[in-house]
């Protein structure tokens, strides 16, 4: 008797189990109830990014009443968890209805792998071709076709400062040259600021290095590095890396344990005077209630605007292509861009969005965007594809620990040769 009862329990347990496996209907959004849902895949899971996405969702809700927005955000790992999930879903042929991708070279991965659709026709239909600046359109165009709709523009080469700390060291005006910057950093050290420049790990180091490269090489040579006509092995690169090494001596030695927000905290706490970071820092500082900050373009960058852009695409095999197109139309519209960017802290990629209603920093950036010299960014995907990005990131990580100038230069040159445009 005991046994049979036990067997019954086992049978029930087993049955339940099989039912779980068989019936637990997919939790993957967008695969559930029909084709009306539009799964928007991003890594915008918290903070201003999430708020921006919610803003877009609101506009989408009124513009595309036939469709339902499904938030497919994947958190964690600074976007790397999301990219891993995305790669496997694309490979398995179960793509989300649309996903976030950095505009520029990073998109080429998806284009080369034949995973996203050509949107040139939609550009014409929605009048987007004239709404974006020509430079951006050129950057988005691959073999005469356009594959994504940019939602925003961020500026990467901005130097943030703590006004109080700077004033204490007698610095009233931000430096405009690299020499001047080094002099200021020395002043800060002399004034007792142990780490004048706050820095984080991997990609934040890549950003600092690129800002310095722009100062040392100028925008033309900097651009050339990424389009395959530049020289990574030359003497000017050696000089730049040597300067970068010197710059690192002004930063916190525990940088490899820091995210950009930890570095930002050093700035807010007055433990550091400066931090180089993209202009999402403005929104973040505002959100954290820190008012005492200054900003300027990285010393020596002149009127160079190092840009990066988030864009959305139509994956091949998306279940709800009509819904996706309506989403993309929303993303590209003036209303969508205004709503999204006010919350995310970036500026609209369109040049016809009225500036009023945007915070002061963003208004200034919108102005610069129209007139400045544009260069792309590798850690943020506008300059280089993901494989290249990975190799550069690893090399920078090594340099942060050993400061070996020759090794970094050799690694950067090899990475360009192996993954750069010449390699294809």
């Amino acid at each position, binding site marked *: 008797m005991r046994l049979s009862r036990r067997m019954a329990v086992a049978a029930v347990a087993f049955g339940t189990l099989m039912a779980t496996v068989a019936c637990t209907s997919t939790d993957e959004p967008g695969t559930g109830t029909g084709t009306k849902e539009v799964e928007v895949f991003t890594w915008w899971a918290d903070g201003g990014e999430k708020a921006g996405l919610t803003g877009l969702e609101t506009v989408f809700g009124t513009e595309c009443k036939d469709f339902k927005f499904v938030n497919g955000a994947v958190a964690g790992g600074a976007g790397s968890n999301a990219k*891993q999930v995305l790669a496997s879903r694309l490979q398995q042929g179960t793509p989300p209805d649309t996903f976030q991708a950095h505009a520029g070279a990073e998109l080429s991965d998806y284009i080369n792998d034949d995973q996203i659709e050509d949107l040139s026709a939609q550009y014409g239909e929605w009048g987007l071709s004239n709404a974006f600046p020509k430079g951006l359109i050129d950057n988005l165009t691959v073999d005469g076709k356009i594959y994504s709709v940019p939602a925003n523009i961020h500026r990467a080469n901005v130097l943030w400062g703590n006004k109080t700390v700077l004033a204490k060291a007698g610095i009233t005006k931000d430096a405009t040259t690299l020499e001047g910057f080094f002099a200021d950093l020395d002043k800060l050290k002399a004034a007792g600021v142990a780490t004048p420049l706050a820095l984080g790990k991997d990609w934040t180091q890549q950003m600092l290095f690129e800002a310095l490269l722009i100062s040392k090489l100028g925008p033309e040579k900097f651009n050339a590095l990424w389009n395959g006509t530049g020289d990574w092995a030359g003497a000017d690169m050696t000089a730049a890396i040597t300067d970068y090494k010197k710059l690192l001596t002004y930063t916190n030695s525990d940088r490899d344990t820091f995210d950009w927000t930890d570095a930002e905290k050093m700035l807010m706490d007055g433990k550091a005077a400066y931090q180089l970071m993209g202009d999402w820092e403005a929104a973040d500082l505002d959100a954290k209630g820190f008012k005492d900050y200054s900003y300027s373009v990285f010393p020596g960058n002149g009127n160079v605007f190092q840009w990066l852009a988030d864009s959305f695409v139509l994956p091949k095999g998306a279940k709800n292509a009509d819904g996706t197109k309506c989403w993309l139309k929303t993303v590209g519209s003036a209303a969508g861009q205004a709503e999204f960017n006010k919350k995310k802290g970036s500026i609209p990629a369109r040049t016809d969005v009225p500036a009023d209603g945007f915070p002061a920093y963003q208004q200034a950036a919108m102005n610069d965007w129209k007139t400045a010299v544009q260069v792309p960014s590798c850690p943020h995907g506008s300059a280089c594809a993901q494989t290249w990005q990975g190799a550069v990131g690893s090399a920078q990580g090594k340099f942060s620990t050993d400061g070996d100038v020759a090794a970094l230069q050799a690694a950067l040159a090899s990475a360009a040769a192996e993954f750069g445009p010449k390699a294809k």
Partner: protein
Amino acid sequence: MRHRKRTWIPGLLLISPSLILLAVFVYGLIGWTVDLSMQDRHNARPSKGFVGLDNYDKLFNHDINDRFTHSLLNLLVFTVVFIVGTIVLGLLWSLLLERGARAEGFFRTVYLFPMAVSFVASGVVWRWLMNPGQGENAGGINAIFEGLGLHFLEGPWWTDPDWGMAAMAMPAVWQLSGYVMALFLAGFRGIPDELREAAVVDGATTFQLYRRVLFPQLTPTILSALIITGHMSMKMFDLIMSVSGAQWLTEVPAVYVWQTLLTRDYAKAAAISVFLLLVVAVVVVPYLIHVNRSEKRS
């Protein structure tokens, strides 16, 4: 009376679903990965052809900054500290406890509890404990040293370029020493009392008793402990991802695979995985054969 003769066919039938599953999901997929590691497939498109061992050659001889070799060295440091640490602590604890102690259950429970915690969860607190800030910025363990005035003990922990992986092994040692202790305790208790008694009758000192009589009996236990900790070390991924995240400083092959898959270099990721598998197999296969043989003998 219906006496049935035992035939082996039903046994094989009962076990065959498992055998098929393992044949497919262990050996089949390993075969798949091995094949992939020899293809020219460095993006999401189909392979451009068979390239033999080229991908392996690239890993060892042409990887930028010798990244793969570096990850192997990291793994080596981690593994040595992890294995030595768990075995030393596990042995020490089991020696302190093996002849019975007051509140032995309490001590054993405490020493073992970290084993129940996932690396992801313990990584959260160890990242905090191993804060590399020193002096007035000291945090975590450094703050204790700072408070005790032991400044010279404050360290950069896992951010040290040469020995950082030794620090990274500390949470793993914390987590698994209790397990090794349990293995040793079971080993000690498996030794027949007659052996001890005989040694005592022969006038052996405590030291001699352990050295000559008990430790030799523990050889199989030590072997198990080595194999278990060793193969865990090869797979180490969760802990590193949650303490430092994926970065050069603490990169081991398992993390390198993750990073490589992010850039969709499937063949390279497969080659790293297969190499890892080979390292494990070189140690584990002889061990399994040894166990199989010694079992037959007895």
